[in-house]
């Protein structure tokens, strides 16, 4: 525990008290608040705020509760959910503006009544390395730091914060603080963690639907950065080589493990300058813990091992049978695909890799884009998904031999939460048999037209003294001869 900054600026205190007064007037009061921060799944930071809310207003009943998120932390927010603690029911939560989220209570809170709520938030990349630079083989240390008080739209009587870190059993507790009076401006916890942490600066996943080939092509494009502390001093090849052969731990992320469906085929890994020839696919099928589906593991080795702060960009892809993702009712097609794939960075050497490593979630996606390329002629497109998206758009797109073009559904979202990997997207569209035959017909017509054109051009003669002229001349000559003959006769 390291309470930092012991003094408390008077101005800030005054402001806060004024603020608190105005809030109190609204009538809702947080009588008790317990914030639990779990840092065991970095770079994801799970915060759960258990709060007892009491309506102290004389007459007014409250239908909603507003949760606040710091402006600074709001850019790192991956998800926010509000549950009623007693029933466990999730409350409908909408973003009002900036960092204000309004949850609608299931039943209006009458004057004098109390309710317990759980506000669960996930932030990504809010924990930084301290020191920011270490040597290749040294341990990594991290520091979680935050304000001691949970921001709230309402007055808070009592609150405390508990922090769980990966390296220690015992949790660290700050508080309790009464009536928003903390004797510090910042609380922080330092801890050791050598777990790999990666950040996908951008990640794009593309589905390409082909009805002809019964093929669903998946393409995943990553721009990845290792969040490990940067290297202190120059790169040390000797140390790297030695730790490789001596099997000593170092901070290089050497392998990226990608779970792919068991029926995936035609896999490839490419980056901007060609094939990444060092990748492999494990032949064994594994059974997923959550949904029971089976998967294989693609062992992807970047061209160079990733040290802290190093970037790597690549894309990989594979095909799966379309039929396992598509349900058809007449012309109506329902395509159900995973919202996002999973990837796990791994610092372990090749012979120490395990399936459990592939199941870890240590890659936070900062900017995500999902593209579903529907077949040419798909109409009445309807997209459903459980995860909120920042934007859902439809774009025209042309692919191999398209004549009328097709539609791409583009879904964008910032900061994916860890449970996004278990979500799926349902895209429904109409696709008629005629559309299926459109492409072959267009191509056949085009080739036939070319053939006709070629044959027509072949029959024409462009020369000045062409055959036809000669023929004509001959005919004329003949006629003339005949005439002269006639005349002579």
């Amino acid at each position, binding site marked *: 525990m390291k309470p930092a900054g012991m003094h408390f600026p008077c101005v800030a205190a005054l402001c806060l008290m004024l603020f608190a007064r105005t809030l109190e007037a609204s009538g809702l009061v947080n009588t008790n608040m317990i914030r639990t921060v779990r840092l065991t799944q970095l770079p994801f930071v799970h915060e759960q705020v258990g709060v007892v809310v009491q309506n102290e207003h004389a007459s007014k009943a409250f239908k909603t509760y507003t949760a606040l998120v710091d402006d600074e932390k709001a850019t790192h927010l991956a998800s926010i959910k509000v549950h009623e603690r007693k029933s466990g029911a999730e409350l409908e939560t909408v973003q009002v503006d900036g960092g204000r989220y309004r949850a609608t209570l299931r039943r209006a809170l009458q004057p004098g009544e109390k309710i317990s709520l759980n506000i669960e938030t996930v932030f990504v990349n809010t924990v930084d390395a301290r020191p920011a630079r270490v040597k290749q083989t040294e341990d990594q240390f991290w520091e979680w730091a935050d304000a001691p008080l949970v921001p709230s739209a309402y007055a808070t009587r009592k609150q405390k914060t508990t922090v769980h870190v990966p390296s220690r059993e015992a949790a660290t507790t700050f508080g309790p603080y009464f009536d928003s009076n903390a004797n510090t401006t910042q609380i922080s916890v330092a801890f050791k963690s050598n777990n790999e942490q990666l950040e996908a600066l951008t990640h794009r996943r593309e589905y390409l639907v082909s009805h002809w080939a019964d093929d669903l092509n998946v393409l995943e494009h990553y721009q990845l950065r290792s969040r490990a502390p940067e290297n202190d*001093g*120059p*790169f*040390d*090849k*000797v140390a790297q*080589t*030695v730790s490789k052969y001596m099997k000593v731990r170092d901070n290089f992320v050497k392998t990226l493990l990608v779970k792919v469906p068991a029926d995936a085929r035609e896999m490839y890994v490419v*980056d*901007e*300058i*060609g*094939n990444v*020839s*060092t990748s492999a696919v494990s032949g064994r099928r594994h059974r997923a813990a959550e949904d029971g589906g089976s998967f294989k593991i693609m062992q992807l080795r970047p*061209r*160079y091992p990733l040290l802290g702060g*190093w*970037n*790597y*960009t690549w894309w990989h892809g594979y095909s799966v049978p379309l039929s396992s993702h598509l349900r058809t009712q007449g012309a109506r097609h329902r395509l159900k695909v995973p919202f996002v794939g999973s990837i796990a960075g791994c610092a372990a050497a090749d012979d120490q890799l395990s399936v459990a490593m592939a199941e870890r979630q240590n890659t936070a996606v900062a900017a995500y884009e999902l593209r579903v390329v529907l077949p040419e002629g798909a109409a009445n497109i309807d997209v459903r998904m459980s995860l909120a998206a920042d934007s859902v758009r439809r774009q025209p797109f*042309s*692919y*191999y*031999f*398209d*004549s009328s073009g097709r539609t791409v559904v583009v879904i964008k979202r910032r900061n994916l939460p860890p449970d996004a990997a278990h979500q799926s997207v349902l895209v429904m569209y109409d696709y008629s048999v005629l559309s299926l035959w459109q492409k072959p017909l267009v191509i056949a017509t085009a080739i036939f037209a070319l053939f006709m054109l070629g044959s027509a051009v072949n029959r024409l003669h462009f020369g000045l003294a062409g055959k036809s002229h000669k023929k004509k001349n001959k005919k004329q000559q003949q006629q003339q001869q005949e005439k002269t003959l006639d005349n002579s006769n």
Partner: protein
Amino acid sequence: MAGKVLGLTAVDQTSLLRIGILGLISLVAIGSRLYSVLRFESVIHEFDPWFNYRTTRYLVDNGFDKFWNWFDETAWYPLGRVVGGTLYPGIMVTSAAINNALHAVNIPVDVRNVCVFLAPVFSALTAVATYKLGKEVQSETAGLLAAAFMGIAPGYISRSVAGSYDNEGIAIFLLVLTFFLWLRAVRLGSAAYAAVTAAAYFYMVSAWGGYVFIINMIPLHAFALLAMGRYSNRLYVAYSTFYVLGTLASMQIPFVGFQPTFTSEHMAALGTFGLMQIAAFAGLVRAQLPAQQFQTLVRAAVVAAFAAGCAGLAVLTATGAIAPWTGRFYSLWDTAYAKVHIPIIASVSEHQPTPWTNFFFDLNILIWLFPAGIYFSFRQLTDHHVFLVLYALFASYFAGVMVRLMLTLTPIVCVMGGISMANVFESFLGAGPTSDASTGSANSSTDSVGGSGGDRKKKNPAKAVPKRLAGESAQDGSAQPAPDGGDTQQGQSARQKRLYALVPRVAVMANFLYFLCMYQWHCSWVTSSAYSSPSVVLASRAPDGTTHIIDDFREAYYWLRKNTEADAKVLSWWDYGYQLAGMADRTTLVDNNTWNNTHIATVGRIMASDEDTAYAIARSLDVNYVLVVFGGMLGYSGDDINKFLWMIRIAQGVYPDHVRENDFFNDQGQYSIGDSASPAMRASLMHKMSYYRFNEVMGGRAFDRVRKQQLPSSVTLDNFEEAYTTENWMVRIYRVKDLDNLGRSHHAVAALAGRRGSA
């Protein structure tokens, strides 16, 4: 005539067969060039192709105008390079056009794939063009054989495998096409064909510096015809049209510009053009004068004009009005010239004289058929054959002087091979049976091989050998009309005779068939084993037969691309300049363009200097990273230490006071790298960067696997720090340190902190 098959007449059948054969040849030509893609991947090979690829990408992304006016500030830092004006844009424009055409019909291919497969596709076109050329000069049989040879000749494949995206990939096609069109233009005296020739020539000029070969070859042909007294109006029309249009067109390429008007390489064409006008004028005069006087007059005039032209040329060259020959040209006459005067040209392996084994390696049996083809050409010696003989002579000379020019020799060797092989076929399969039949009975075609072959081939001399080959066809033709019948006794002995005649025929044909099979075998083997390695990616074979890909170059380049500042300047020897620009996308100081010898020498000097001098120069040039290639770990012999002597030589050429080649040999006169190395060698940046801390990982008494020498025991490096080293130590990248904050020297700082690498 044979009966109709599938409703086709015999003529249609043969043309269908020809199209089929040509199609198959094209397929084989493309197919055999795909080894590299199958073995490795669809990747751009070697060095220059990376520049072509990068510029093609730029063209596709930014459009033609921007491409044309492109000033690339990321090359030749700090000088920059006017890219649009210093390249042959043909190949880029071709690829971009293909790319855009494919995208227009919604085939979203990547530009890289267009570039990778451009050369194989064009090699199929080359085969077709060779067929046309062979048909033009001899017969369809010769054409088909030449096309088949051309399709898989290793001499051509060496520069046109998939991924070898270089100018030669399309230029050889254009070379053959231009020559074919020229010969046709001369035969027909057609201004239209001459104009098409000029257009093909223009395309060639836009594609490859080797166009100079055409603009000397065609005038030479015209001049030779003039000198042989074969002047005709057809030649006049063809040459004048070609020269005027072709020269004007070629001047539209900025890189060529006004060169056709003032450089020595183009003077022969101009002179021949003048002679042609004089000859035409003489033709006019001839009409007015008696023949004998005219002859002497013409002779005198031609000789006088030629002498005056040469004298004028000499004077203009001497006074500098005509640009003198370039260094590369001098080295064509004197192979030792470059080594003495311009080490940078001599340092390129493809500019070395050709070892004689290469001729057999690249051409196989064609090298034996080639002289035979020349012999047959001499026998006929039409205008076309004059051209072939001249082409053969000059191309053989140039191919002997420079390895790279094997490329220009290959087409003529293939055509000559086609001609001689066609002659063999025609004498042993075609004309043979018919001449036999003249003495034999009508039912002589029992021998199915010779008979059916003869049946087919018989048409060729009859149809394809044109009237201009009067001498040849007269010999065969005299035997053609077979007197029918003959009595049975005669028939009996004739059958015996025929049987005896059959033996050598079968033997010869079997022999040649064997040769042809061996040719195909050899070509495939050479292609697969020698010419299909991308050199960007290396493959090694484990004892158990599995291939292990060594991808260190791309590892290093990609590391630079993703983990250095976008405007970082990377210093390396010029060999890697294009690859750095293409794969690492970083600013380079020198690259494979080698247009500025001084700048290259400066880089050589940095590599050859001691640490402090190198640091000062590198900092003055804003260098952020230094990249060296080191093969000592893996035994990769093409590394920088092995190229180091060339760097020293080139640097010495410009900085003789600072760099001396002799300093780098030790007392025993050896080029050593270990503890017995000369002081200059051990102090040099190249040596330090290659061996920095290498012995720590290899253990005490380790060896450099390339040099087979013991490693130096102590290597210190203070002004530069290791930034990245690839898996097999093949590429080592160093960061140029910033100046010390306290103004100390880096040596002092390192001494204070305790040095690494000094073990």
